[in-house]
């Protein structure tokens, strides 16, 4: 693998279930993502997108194959080691925002830092919120923010640990078109600043934001389009 490769998946297979009921969600899947790239993963539901997202995000381990993340083989790490990789190297953005409703915006952004004992958490959280243009909403609770603003808080939370990768799973799935454009603009801006971004989506509107798009079908790569 090359020096500027952030992600290197080699013949990844992920099988669910046991015995006769096994389903292969990914079959002999290989993919390389360079540092600083922005990639859109597209495909219909059931194509293996979510499985790919879980493996890329170190939320799950492959049944077979190897996965190198930033030069480290993460395919055989245990749960605790995977938790450390997620905490230090990956920022997640989810379709449902996944903000804790009882915490203010900045407290939500602070969360990942609590799991690595960083001391100036408030400053870092405010800095991340500023990057997504929400400096005036730091003490608002999620319920007091619009969907687009909530997703931007979630992006700030993904950013706050200064991760190698931002992994966004259907980031615009719950947003109206204006908010979607907002959120995509933030993601594009982050990519332009040099951050690697992978967006998993079935929305063709999202793909142009990325400089490369891959299509998945039945757990396999069907084609690659460079923008």
């Amino acid at each position: 693998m090359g020096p500027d490769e952030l992600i290197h998946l080699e013949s990844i297979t992920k099988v669910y279930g046991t015995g006769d009921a096994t389903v292969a969600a990914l079959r002999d899947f290989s993919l390389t993502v360079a540092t600083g790239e922005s990639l859109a993963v597209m495909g219909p539901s059931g194509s293996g997108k979510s499985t790919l997202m879980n493996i890329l995000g170190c939320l799950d381990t492959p049944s077979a194959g190897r996965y190198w993340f930033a030069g480290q083989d993460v395919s055989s790490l245990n749960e605790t080691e995977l938790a450390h990789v997620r905490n230090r190297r990956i920022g997640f953005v989810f379709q449902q925002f996944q903000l804790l409703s009882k915490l203010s915006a900045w407290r939500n952004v602070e969360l990942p830092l609590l799991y690595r004992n960083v001391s100036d958490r408030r400053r870092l959280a405010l800095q991340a919120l500023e990057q997504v243009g929400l400096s005036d909403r730091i003490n608002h609770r999620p319920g007091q923010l619009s969907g687009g603003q909530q997703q931007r808080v979630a992006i700030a939370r993904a950013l706050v640990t200064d991760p190698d990768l931002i992994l966004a799973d259907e980031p615009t799935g719950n947003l109206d078109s204006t908010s979607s454009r907002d959120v995509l603009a933030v993601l594009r801006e982050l990519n332009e600043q040099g951050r690697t971004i992978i967006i998993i989506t079935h929305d063709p509107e999202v793909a142009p934001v990325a400089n490369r798009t891959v299509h998945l079908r039945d757990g396999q790569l069907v084609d690659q389009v460079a923008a």
Partner: protein
Amino acid sequence: MSLLHTIETGLRSLLGHRLRSVLTTLGILFGVAAVIATVGIGQASSDSVTARITSLGTNLLTISSGSNVSGGVFGGGGSANTLTMDDVTGLQDRQSAPDIAAVAPVSQGRASLVSASSNWSTTLSGSTAGWLVTNTRTIGSGTFITDHDVATRAQVIVLGSTTAANLGVGVGDIVMVKQIPFEVIGVLAASGSQGFGNQDDLGVVPISTAQDELFGGGSSVQRILMSATSASTIGSAYLEASQILLQTHHLADPTQADFTITTQTQVLSTAQAVTQTLTILLASVAAISLLVGGIGVMNIMLVSVTERTSEIGLRKALGATPFDLFRQFVIEAGMLTAVGGLLGVGTGLAVGYVVPRAANIAVTITPLPVLVAVGVAVAVGLVFGVYPALRAARLAPIEALRAQ
């Protein structure tokens, strides 16, 4: 995640469900309070029994008729009166019983005492001069029954201080018992001992008078009280008494003995065993309520884990390790029970303060049961928190995130 933040997160979660947390805490509170209060009551009754028995003097030996072995202190006694005044005479022999200091036969019954101004029902004992020594009592005013009174069947009576006060009589006055006049020749000094049965409410008359005029029964006596010369000679006094009685009863085989000799230490240990058993019984019931409280904690923690599944998934995605989540839920359970335990101590101490004043039941609270109850409460929380916490720690992040 630092411990401080784990606690902070836990507090926020518990305060987020205030009513639920309070109700769960109540279960532990009552459990701990019940343990403290019941052990306190048991301890107090044990203390009171011990104090009463030791106030009778540890040198005391009691001979009762019946063939029970020494373990069955109260059983069989008095089923047939096999003790007589001849036994008393035999036991008073200094030659064959050098370690017996005093002997007092006792025939006892309830009797109504009538004075000029009042009447009063009390326990009346027929005995001899030895009664005062064997019961470790002293005379407050007047004199006690003498050997001469016994020999002459004198119609004289010595009263306990409470009895004398209730009858409104003093030394020199006359009280009627079964229409027979008795002259009050002495009043006992107050014993001060309290508890079951007042030691200052009694009357003593010469045993000969009691046998002939009051209770009947010829020369048989219900029991014989003896004092050993000292605490260290109780053993030899026991042997001497038993030998003399076997002889006077013409028995060769000690296993055929138709009498039972009991020492105060035996009575004491039996009484303590009884109160201890009762205390354990009560405390067990209380401990069960503590256990039920613990199950309540587990229940609520399981509900909490289920409710917060997506939060758990999110925290995992953000980098919480299985241990972080395990610790989170164990600490939340521990906080619930610790608070419940501390409030339970407060409630238990309050019960210990109020009950003696309101219901005349003594409660003695010692530090040990309090510490044990709190320790058990917290342990219960941690133990019952483990299973829900493991559930949380084992949740797969992806599935947890999808739950909504």
